[in-house]
């Protein structure tokens, strides 16, 4: 298993390198000139050349790329501007006048809080409701759950967010408008600012978990080994949880890993709707200002999350399902 994990980590490093190269190439070969933005309105061609030189943009693309890569591990000085960027250096945002890594770290807390809370919510709600529907298959409860799952998957995230803001914040005045506070500073305000975004995001994802849990639970409960477990006289609880739910968890875990890894981008609209200062909002703003170093940094970070999440899921397979062996 260790050899397997190490080999997968090697593959991840390679994938990250290729993604980095492609993203880098696209940004630096396209007509958008970051020096022109930094230079300002009254820019002469001589000054532009100076700015380009200071930012290191007059170097060949390959040189720029290699210095970007080495900067990640060793840190670097940017161009001839004398700005120091300590390792891990993912470039420097000229718009925010700050190293990209600091910006990412700054916003990561918001996105992680949003993702973690929403993921717990949708996993618990999704699996529980799916389980309830499967055990009472065909009943009114089952139909109600399936129908509401269908409705929430179809409802656009904008609508859910807008409805929550409209009825809970504006009409009901139950909550203030989200004003993010770090969890350690003020746990109550942290929850208050995130509860609606959590619900929005969870509503988006929970429906799929309901459908998935229900479908595979119905299939599993019809298996002969469940009948055997019942025939042995095991309590129904044990049969459902230890024998039924355990084998249902494998497909759910796969989807959960993939969803969680992709949540950085998935939460972008939710962050924008609620005005949460997370990584999604940072990306959105950076794109508007053509702040390429930030976009490059977020792309790499998001890709890293996706690949690592996939690896963790594959490793957890062995824990949940002992039949899985790593070659």
């Amino acid at each position, binding site marked *: 298993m260790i050899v397997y994990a190490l080999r997968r980590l090697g593959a991840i490093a390679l994938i990250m390198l290729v*993604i980095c190269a492609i993203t880098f190439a696209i940004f630096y070969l396209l007509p958008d000139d970051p020096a022109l933005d930094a230079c300002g309105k009254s820019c002469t061609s001589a000054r532009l050349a100076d700015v380009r030189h200071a930012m290191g943009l007059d170097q060949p693309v390959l040189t720029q790329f290699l210095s970007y890569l080495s900067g990640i591990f060793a840190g670097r000085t940017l161009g001839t501007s004398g700005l120091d960027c300590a390792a891990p250096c993912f470039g420097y945002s000229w718009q925010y006048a700050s190293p990209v890594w600091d910006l990412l770290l700054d916003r990561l807390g918001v996105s992680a809080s949003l993702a973690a809370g929403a993921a717990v919510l949708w996993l618990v709600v999704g699996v529980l409701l799916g389980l309830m529907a499967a055990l009472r298959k065909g009943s009114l409860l089952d139909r109600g759950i399936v129908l509401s799952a*269908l409705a929430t998957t179809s409802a656009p995230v904008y609508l859910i967010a*807008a409805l929550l803001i409209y009825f809970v914040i504006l009409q009901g005045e139950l909550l203030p408008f989200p004003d993010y506070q770090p969890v350690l500073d003020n746990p109550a305000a942290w929850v208050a600012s995130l509860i609606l975004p959590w619900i929005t995001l969870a509503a988006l994802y929970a429906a799929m978990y309901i459908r998935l849990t229900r479908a595979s639970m119905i299939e599993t409960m019809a298996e002969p080994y469940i009948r055997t477990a019942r025939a042995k006289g095991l309590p129904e609880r044990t049969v459902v949880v230890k024998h039924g739910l355990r084998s249902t968890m494998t497909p759910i875990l796969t989807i959960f890993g993939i969803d969680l890894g992709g949540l950085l981008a998935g939460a972008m609209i939710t962050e924008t709707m609620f005005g949460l200062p997370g990584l999604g909002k940072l990306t959105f703003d950076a794109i508007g200002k053509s702040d390429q170093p930030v976009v490059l940094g977020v792309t790499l970070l998001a890709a890293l999350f996706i690949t690592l999440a996939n690896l963790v899921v594959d490793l957890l397979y062995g824990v949940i399902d002992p039949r899985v062996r790593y070659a």
Partner: protein
Amino acid sequence: MAGLVVVLILVLLAALAPVITAWTGWAPETFDKTAIDPNMGGLPKGAWGGIGTEHLLGVEPVTGRDVLSRILYGGQISLLIAMLATAITVVTGLVLGLLAGFLGGWADTVISRIMDLLMSFPSLIFMIAILSVVRDVNRIVLLVAVLSVFGWTVVARIVRGQVLTIKHREYVEAARVGGGMTGYILLKEILPGLTAPILVYATQAVPAYVGAEAALSFLGVGVRPPTPSWGQMINNARGWFMTDPVYLAVPCAFLGLTVLACTLLGDGLRDAFDPKAVRA
């Protein structure tokens, strides 16, 4: 069944947009200053976002453009992009998946590695990045291209997996022993076995692409004004929903209805194709 009917109605409505707008008399770009109240900051006159006999789904704040007309023309764009992207991803995924699964060897290695790479890409962020830097290209073509580049891997994975299981079945072996050419075996023996999963995938891909187009337009990198699209209407409405919630609700409802109908259609198709499935 209900899903199929609703999907057909939506497609028909979008296709007949010019006819319907000719009948209502409001083109998507026609301003109607009489339908809005300048003293209220440009809010539509009347309750419910200006819904009435003149404007069946109300009007846009400030400009007074007819919402129904913009929904219909926006639907044309949204559905066109979604269907084109689905068609391209299905064909590309089918061809590459068949090649990878059937040929094996280095073809499989190359195609599978490309799929791994594309699947690790944070596609939404990357799409936004590309769409924001590429300026002078037709937005619809660009959107279809970007969605397709990241979409085909799903089809290719399904096809590759299916081909790997089908290609050693007795009937395929029999065709090969009988002297069938590779092309013949692919087309006549393997392809028919792939129809069901691909058709089901396609019905799920269309709403996913409608949603993706809406998301990209909402984030301001999709279809550019004045061309209407649902995502763009939602983005415009975002600033108004506290005073004119109907303006937000209408495009959201159409988006939701499309997704719902396509999901029902996909579920129905899957049940119809899967002999094991019990109708719920």
